């Protein structure tokens, strides 16, 4: 194996990280091998485009020739820049101490980029936020899962040339009234709200309008409903996304109609998607990508 030195932060200390890789069909495996203390005390963060490894001490790097990804170093960081959005699985192994990253080929992402979406303006609503964590399970919060998918979904739609607005881009509380106002100001072609459920199922909600209100409160619900014109489109959008999720995950997807204010008060085809509880689904990069992709497929199905 021929190795190329790409970084030297503290050669005199002799702590070296050796980078090698192997490829099999669409899977690339990157292995970072180093002494125990360096590997065991490292911290890893990953996104679809980047893997960052933070080591506890300075190090030098030697890289196997032909690595299909760019590697850079900064202070105690080693950064692997992935050429395209990828799903990454990570393992920390011993004897010898090493970090292993399995990077899934981007066939599915290429596919998703080629999917035709005709709607032009989207509003995506990551539910909850700020002090409102939503459903929590261990370290996983509803507000963060929704945000992660919303950003990823927004990014993919933007790459398709679509106008995408998120009701919130940071971890902040936003009232239902403010969300509704924001959504209607943007006059979207499609509105998607992302939440979590308590169950093992995906649940897809479309709006439900109640015509029999007789007092002022019922009237409030009725009059606040800007949804009337779009109710059939909302149902079709919900059915389309339900089908796409079902196809992708091979799971039963519950479909409900409910007078949720965030759906009933929006003047656009609208859907609220509840993701399965983290007790039943592991929200790793790959799962998040699959959810995003299935929503895109659902939108494409609706647009046809």
């Amino acid at each position, binding site marked *: 194996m021929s190795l190329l030195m790409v970084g030297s932060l503290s050669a005199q200390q002799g702590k070296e990280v050796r980078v090698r890789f192997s490829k099999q069909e669409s899977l690339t495996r990157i292995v970072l091998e180093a002494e125990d203390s360096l590997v065991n005390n490292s911290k890893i963060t990953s996104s679809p485009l980047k893997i960052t490894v933070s080591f506890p001490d300075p190090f030098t790097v030697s890289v196997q020739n032909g690595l299909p990804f760019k590697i850079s170093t900064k202070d105690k960081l080693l950064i692997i820049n992935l050429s395209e959005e990828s799903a990454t699985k990570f393992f920390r192994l011993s004897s010898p101490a090493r970090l292993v990253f399995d990077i899934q080929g981007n066939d599915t992402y290429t596919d998703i980029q080629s999917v035709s979406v005709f709607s032009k303006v989207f509003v995506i609503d990551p539910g909850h936020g700020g002090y409102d964590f939503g*459903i929590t399970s261990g370290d996983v919060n509803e507000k963060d899962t929704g945000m992660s998918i919303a950003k990823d979904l927004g990014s993919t739609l933007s790459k398709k040339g679509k106008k995408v607005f998120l009701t919130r881009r940071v971890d902040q509380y936003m009232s*239902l009234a403010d969300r509704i106002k924001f959504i209607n100001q943007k006059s979207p072609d499609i509105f998607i709200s992302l*939440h979590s459920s308590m169950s093992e199922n995906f649940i897809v909600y479309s709006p439900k309008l*109640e015509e029999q209100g007789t007092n002022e409160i019922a009237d409030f619900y009725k009059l606040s409903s800007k949804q009337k014109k779009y109710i059939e489109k909302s149902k079709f959008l919900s059915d389309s996304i339900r089908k796409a999720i079902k196809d992708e995950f091979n799971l039963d997807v519950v479909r409900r109609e409910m007078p949720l*204010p965030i759906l009933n008060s929006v003047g656009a085809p609208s859907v609220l998607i*509840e993701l399965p509880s983290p007790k039943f689904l592991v929200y790793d990069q790959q799962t998040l990508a699959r959810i995003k992709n299935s929503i895109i497929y659902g939108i494409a199905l609706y647009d046809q």
Partner: protein
Amino acid sequence: MDNRRLSGFIFLILLFIVGVVAGYVYFVKVFYKGSHALKNAETSNITEDFFSLRIYYPSGDGLQMEEKRLPRRTAQIAIAEATVEEFLKGPSSGITSGISKNVKLLGIYKDIDGIFYVDLSDEFRRNFQGDAFAEILLLKGLYKSLISNMDDIQDLKVLIEGNEIETLGGHFYLLYPLKDMVSPEFY
């Protein structure tokens, strides 16, 4: 003569003893009956001093009713308080109800239109862990529990720490009375 007097004396003593025993037996019976009747009357009063509440707890995809027996209350507000307190305690059947933990009832008020205002501690909002369906079932259970035990309630509005808040769990409005939101057979 002495013998005759002695026999008469003994006879009188025996007559006295028989009389005492008979009297004792008679009075014990009467007393026993009386005390038994009194006990029955007391038991009867105790039975009459209890009443039943029907409480509806979220369970799975619907509500499950449990009957609770409590010391009788007559005032409507007291019945409403007992209903809400029993609801907040959760079901005795052990089902998972999704009712927020450690919630305190701070007060119940009724306005001239028959709308009851149930004022709950912030734990009702803060400790709620549920999705949209769990949220509507929780509110529906509270509403149905109250209307099932009271005659003159027109609607129910929930306050948190004395204030109106927009939403319990981020899915439904809590700013308005609940009837029109929870009554239709949406769920």
